[in-house]
């Protein structure tokens, strides 16, 4: 059917008819969807976020009760949602054997992704590993279920300060799992400078020798935190627009260094992909197992502020409210809280210290767990008094920080 070049396929009337039909369809679809679809939004609950100065005891909600005591563990498959490399496979095997169940672990690579999936309820896991800056929203949103302490006698093994932490007083929804600091990892055999010797240790990120071999952590809170600390801003949870702009500018100035982001610090540094890497303490300790032949552990260095005023944190274990095997999950939490299991997990695989009273930090070097030159990666209970921890951001703050991070990631 050939049309004259000036002819259009539809007459004007037909166009109007179709347009009207479309608009009618759209608005009726709108009301239909409003009637049947979607989850009910937030109940407008009071958003009080916990901080170390302002500890919070969470409410136990009526529609999200804890499980009853004295129940038998289920026999299904225990499903764990975790960071990669954060749980020793042997622990899973031993637990599976002891309880006669199957254990399955699924990995996520960023907190954002994991929290989004857990909050939406679109995934179902029995065990989750939240962080202090997200746990408040997860609890208020009823995505985590309250824990029944009767199943968790091993909680007594944990440091007193973390048994009753500021982010969850009384350990009602979470139990501690591991502690960590965020410092700077570097290759002593490749970089002449070392952060400890610099006037401003964070300047090592701008060191000429690090060009093209510089990595920051792919985390929208950790990476800017170092930029804040570099400029003497101790409050890593600041929502001051000037501070945010400053951190963003500092991050962008690293483009000249060809900076990249990654959460695989425990392999990037030992393999030589990175010579300076913003690093978690646990990765510093486990990095020694990824060194190629011929390179000794003295090639690795880890710097953390000597006055202790750096970034510190503790991750925890929790049980999502839609878990299919809650009793089994409680048993698993208890299993991990056992002093020996926690220690083995740390020493043999993760490198992240569990906060157990039985674990003597001063013995770790002597026991050969941590190489002497990496002793700055060891975490002590007293460190928590001086260092800064991540707390939850308000919606405005979270938006501002996300935009700053997106702009950095855009390479503008």
């Amino acid at each position, binding site marked *: 059917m050939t049309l004259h*070049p000036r002819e259009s396929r539809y007459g004007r009337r037909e166009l109007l008819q179709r347009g009207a039909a479309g608009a009618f369809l*759209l*608005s009726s*679809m*709108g*009301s239909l*969807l*409003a009637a049947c*679809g*979607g*989850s009910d*939004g*937030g*109940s407008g*609950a009071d*958003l009080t976020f916990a901080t170390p100065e302002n500890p919070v005891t969470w409410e136990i909600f009526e529609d999200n009760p804890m499980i009853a005591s004295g129940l038998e563990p289920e026999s299904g498959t225990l499903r764990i949602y975790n960071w990669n490399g954060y749980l020793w496979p042997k622990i899973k095997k031993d637990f599976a054997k002891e309880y006669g169940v199957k254990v399955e672990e699924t990995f996520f690579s*960023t*907190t*954002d*992704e*994991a*929290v*989004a*999936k857990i*909050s*939406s309820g679109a995934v179902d896991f029995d065990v989750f590993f939240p962080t202090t800056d997200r746990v408040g*929203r997860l609890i*208020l*949103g009823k*995505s985590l279920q309250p824990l029944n302490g009767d199943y968790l006698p091993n909680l007594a093994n944990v440091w007193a300060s973390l048994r009753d932490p500021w982010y969850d007083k009384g350990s009602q929804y979470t139990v501690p799992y591991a502690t960590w600091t965020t410092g700077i990892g570097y290759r002593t055999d490749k970089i002449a400078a070392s952060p400890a010797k610099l006037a401003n240790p964070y300047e090592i990120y701008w060191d000429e020798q690090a060009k*093209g071999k510089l990595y920051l952590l792919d985390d*929208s809170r950790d990476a800017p935190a170092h930029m804040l600390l570099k400029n003497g801003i101790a409050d890593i949870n600041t929502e001051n627009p000037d501070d945010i702009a400053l951190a963003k500018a500092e991050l962008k100035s690293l*483009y000249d260094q*060809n*900076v*990249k*982001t*990654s959460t695989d610090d425990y392999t990037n540094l030992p393999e030589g992909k990175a010579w300076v890497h913003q690093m978690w303490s646990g990765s510093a300790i486990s990095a020694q197992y990824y060194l190629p032949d011929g390179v000794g552990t003295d090639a690795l260095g880890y710097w953390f502020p000597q006055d202790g005023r750096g970034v510190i944190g503790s991750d925890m274990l929790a049980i999502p409210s839609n878990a299919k095997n809650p009793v089994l999950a409680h048993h698993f939490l208890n299993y991990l809280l056992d002093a020996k299991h926690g220690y083995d997990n740390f020493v043999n695989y993760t490198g992240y210290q569990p906060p157990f009273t039985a674990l003597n930090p001063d013995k770790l070097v002597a026991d050969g767990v941590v190489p002497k030159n990496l002793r700055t990666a060891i975490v002590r209970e007293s460190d928590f008094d001086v260092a800064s921890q991540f707390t939850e951001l308000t*919606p405005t703050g*979270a*938006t501002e920080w*996300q*935009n700053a*991070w*997106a*702009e*950095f*990631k*855009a*390479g*503008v």
Partner: protein
Amino acid sequence: MSDLSEQVGEDKTGTRFWAGLALPGMAWLAVFFVLPFYVILCIAFGSVDPIFQTAAPEWNPLQWNTAAFEFVLEGLFTSGAAFQTVFLRTLLYVGIATALSLCIAYPVAYYIARYGGRWKGLLLAGIIAPFFISYLMRMLAWINLLQDDGWVNDVLVWVGILDVPRNWLDGRASSVILGLVYGYVPFMILPLYAFLDRIDRSLLEAARDLGASPFQAFRMVTFPLSMPAILAGIAIIALPMFGDYYTPDLLSGAPQTSLIGNQIVLYIRGGQQIPVGAALVVVLMLFLTVLMGYYIYATARAQRRLGS
């Protein structure tokens, strides 16, 4: 001819029968293709639940909230802003990659169409093979070769072009663009070949008989005739390339080579601003629809010129 006989044989129950056959498929597409587009709009025009940090879609068009769109459009039209820079960078990379792909695909398609002869089947098999190999696997193969101790560096050092192995994967635009070319060029060759195969050879012969040099024959006969093919090839690879985010991630990892797809993924996969991600997706689709419209117009014009 068959058109006419079909029309004559049509009756009311016939229409209902055929429509009925098409119904399951159409219903599926309605629910899982058309509806999601409306949902994206509702989310882009919606808000965010402060507790769950999930999107709170606004189903009623009359109550749509334009904040996310305002943010995105501001970022797109303000000089130097993040969205604009990334978008222009994406245009640049896609443009260069498409042009390079055309330079590679056209000669190959031309050769197979005109001179394939006995080998045509085998050559076509070689061209079709990459369709059966995952894009990711082909990228993986190239990452292997581009590593510090990979073959590319080995060869370049051995030949003497390089003194020291160069790090190709540390965030170069060239690696990303060449990666895009490698990944997408097979999708261009096949349509180009199909069109070029149809070109009447006698037209070319006539031109040569009339005294045109091979180059002139190409320029005045073959190339204009292949315009619809070129346009089709460009459309087939440029549209998906705009949504690519994994190629820069794999071959680079640095912020300076990130594309609009990376920004979309950042905003959609969690965090406070899912509506912004949805708005970006809508803007991208609108842009691609405009491109598609231009393609349809240009093809129609080219075909009119050819009198077909």
